[in-house]
């Protein structure tokens, strides 16, 4: 429970940023074997003096993610300035990061991480076990953001040697290791420093300057212990207006558009000059149904909704055919993903008969949309499809974030809504807590989630698979589609992270062919 509460907050912050973008990207850096299939693993090209400029959407409010929420800070820093002991690769697997390897004790409560002997911070100081212990301790004692609760399972940290650290948990937790790939796992030098203005880490890039309202400039860390990146300087340029962002690429001001805001905009980039990279994100666009309110207290009505929606038609119309169908709250990059889109395939007749059985033909439901592009575009499609099977749908829009958060998210004063949940591995958050806005209360789910968190990796996969299937079978919600990660870049740029599934935008793997 202690883990879940803060995540509620986090996921809100997460998708508020999604209003602008689904920030985040890979933190994979040196092992080109797992680099995006569309790229050649740029880091392998070796260092050069070239600069690169990347267009992003949300500018950070501060450089200190220990005290400020928002996805833009780790997007710029994680994996670039700061490193984590373990990280997530492009396929969603947890792989070694700053730690060269790690072991888990048989009772799954003690993790031992080995550090490389040659790793240094950009100040020149060696990265030692003491720095790791300090960093974990800081999360528990000094961090102020809600995410710090992710470190709650840790009961003790011992730097057993300069190159080894032992972390003891109060109870087994698979999600803790995953969380170590996110910003809470960032390793800081124990000497401390001015995090908000001069971030110092062990990553392949160092912070150079921040032109507020415009850009952040990073320079290659030539003392980096791992494989050195190709580009000498990286400028992260921020654009509030998506049109300005796209124009900047067209005019050559930037080399990469990190996230395309509207899929329709793709048509303005001629394929002779630009490459389009289409990958996945963690952003499940959920058509939520208030499980505590009639008519959605009736499983048959919820199922009818799932049968009534032609997901392919929906993606084709309101998101220009970009995005992937998912049948449950799991993106394909999670190890427990399986195709659940066939659980309730598009079948208008079935939907009608289910509604008839439930006696809810002609029932009126209120679809309360946040005024976000994907929601206002897909809302009318959902309405039209539901009305074809005999439900009446009333749409109203609520200003996002303030009005939507209060009305739908906090007070659950809604029948249906559409929102993208962009937090990674957020199935337990969204459906495991009966007080969450979905109001989903199924006693069968809790034991599965607990077993998944505390068991071995295999147990985790088996149980999460069961949980995801349970949500689909029970029609806890409908999952419209997975937001695509649409990136446009100059043709020569390689190593771009295809899937935006991690918090950091990995710059080290970039190259130019």
């Amino acid at each position: 429970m202690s883990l879940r509460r803060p995540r509620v907050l986090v996921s809100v912050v997460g998708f508020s940023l999604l209003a602008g973008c689904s920030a985040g990207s890979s933190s994979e850096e040196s092992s080109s074997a797992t680099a995006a299939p569309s790229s050649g693993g740029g880091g392998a090209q070796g260092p050069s003096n070239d600069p690169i400029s990347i267009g992003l959407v949300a500018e950070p409010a501060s450089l200190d993610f220990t005290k400020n929420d928002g996805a833009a800070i780790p997007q710029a820093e994680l994996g670039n300035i700061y490193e984590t002991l373990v990280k997530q690769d492009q396929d969603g697997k947890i792989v070694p990061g700053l730690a060269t390897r790690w072991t888990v004790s048989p009772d799954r409560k003690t993790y031992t991480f080995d550090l490389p002997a040659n790793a240094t911070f950009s100040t020149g100081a060696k990265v030692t076990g003491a720095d790791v212990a300090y960093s974990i301790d800081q999360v528990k004692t000094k961090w102020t953001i809600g995410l710090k609760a992710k470190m709650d399972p840790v009961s003790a940290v011992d730097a057993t040697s300069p190159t080894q650290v032992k972390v003891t948990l109060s109870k087994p937790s698979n999600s803790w290791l995953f969380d170590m790939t996110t910003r809470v796992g960032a390793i800081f030098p124990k000497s401390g420093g001015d995090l908000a203005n001069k971030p110092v880490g062990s990553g392949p890039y160092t912070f150079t300057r921040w032109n507020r309202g415009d850009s952040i400039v990073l320079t290659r860390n030539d003392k980096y212990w791992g494989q050195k990146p190709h580009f000498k300087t990286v400028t992260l340029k921020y654009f509030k207006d998506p049109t300005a962002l796209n124009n900047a690429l067209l005019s050559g001001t930037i080399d990469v558009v990190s996230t395309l805001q509207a899929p329709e905009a793709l048509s303005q980039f001629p394929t002779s000059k630009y490459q389009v990279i289409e990958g996945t994100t963690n952003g499940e666009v959920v058509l939520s149904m208030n499980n505590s309110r009639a008519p959605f207290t009736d499983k048959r009505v919820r199922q009818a909704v799932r049968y009534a929606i032609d997901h392919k038609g929906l993606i084709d119309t309101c998101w220009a055919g970009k995005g992937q169908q998912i049948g449950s709250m799991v993106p394909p990059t999670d190890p427990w993903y399986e195709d659940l889109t066939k659980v309730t395939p598009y079948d208008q007749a079935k939907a009608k008969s289910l509604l008839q059985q439930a006696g809810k033909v002609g029932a009126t439901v209120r679809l309360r949309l946040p005024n976000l592009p994907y929601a206002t575009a897909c809302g009318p499609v959902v309405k039209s499809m539901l009305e074809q099977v005999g439900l009446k749908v009333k749409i109203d829009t609520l200003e996002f974030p303030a009005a939507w958060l209060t009305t739908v998210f906090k007070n659950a004063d809604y029948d249906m809504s559409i929102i993208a949940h962009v937090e990674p591995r957020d199935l337990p958050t969204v459906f495991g807590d009966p007080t969450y806005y979905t109001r989903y209360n199924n006693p069968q789910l809790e034991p599965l989630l607990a077993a998944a968190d505390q068991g071995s990796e295999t147990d985790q996969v088996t149980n999460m698979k069961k949980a995801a299937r349970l949500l689909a079978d029970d029609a806890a919600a409908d999952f419209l589609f997975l937001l695509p990660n649409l990136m446009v870049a100059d043709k020569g740029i390689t190593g771009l992270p295809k899937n935006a599934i991690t918090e950091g935008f990995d710059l080290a793997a970039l190259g130019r062919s």
Partner: protein
Amino acid sequence: MRRRSGTLVIGGSLVAMVILAALVSFVWTPHDPGLVVPQDRLAGPSGKHWLGADKLGRDELSRLMVGARTTLLVGIVSVGVAALIGVPLGLVAAMTWRWLGEILMRVSDFVLAFPAVLLAIMLTAIYGSGVVIAMIAIGISTIPAFARVVRSGALQVMSTEYVVAARAAGRRPVGIGLRHVLPNVTSLIIVQASVSFAIAILAEAALSFLGLGAPPDVPSWGRMLQESQSLLQQAPRLAIVPGVAIALAVLGFNLLGDGLRDLLDPRLQQRRVEVQR
């Protein structure tokens, strides 16, 4: 004389077209304006879809017709609100104490300084978006226009001999206002209403374009423009259709206003008589 009535006829017929489209949409549209047909996405004009289909595969003509309803509704209600409040205010400002009139006019200057869109954004932030809020916001920001026109008209009427006579005869101000002043400023109100109507159409389109007006499932010309924005290169037709509709409706109401003013303004009538003599 002939030239003037030309304005009136053109304006009147454009307005009549909008009204007709809205009325017909109650009984018949080529398709259900909300019906999403994925296969028809961005379909060009054809026998099935006379004006093509939008990005959700909805029939453009049906949406245009139903959108005329939203446009007219917003126009009627906002102009109604403005007239209902603005006209009495103008009369009061003209007929009561001088200082009260001055205060009312300064307040109306203040309201005039607030663009309708800004007011609507403010109201939306507080009460949520919707057609009703848009109508109220547009209405409120049009109040000063009515108050000013009515006041200046009423001031003129107040100095006429028959009003002076009525006052000398001891008629109460309310009676004078209703019997003598109001009928004489009616033509001004009608002209102002048709001009305000044009402004209201534009304001509604602007608000819906910004996502502050009609909800996504209610067809509205402004929203149709907004939805076509990202498709300008692929299907410019989707922006042209509602754009032309808005332009014609605004033009229609403006011409109608001009024509009515020429027809109803007593001074112009007088001049006409002089010319004829």
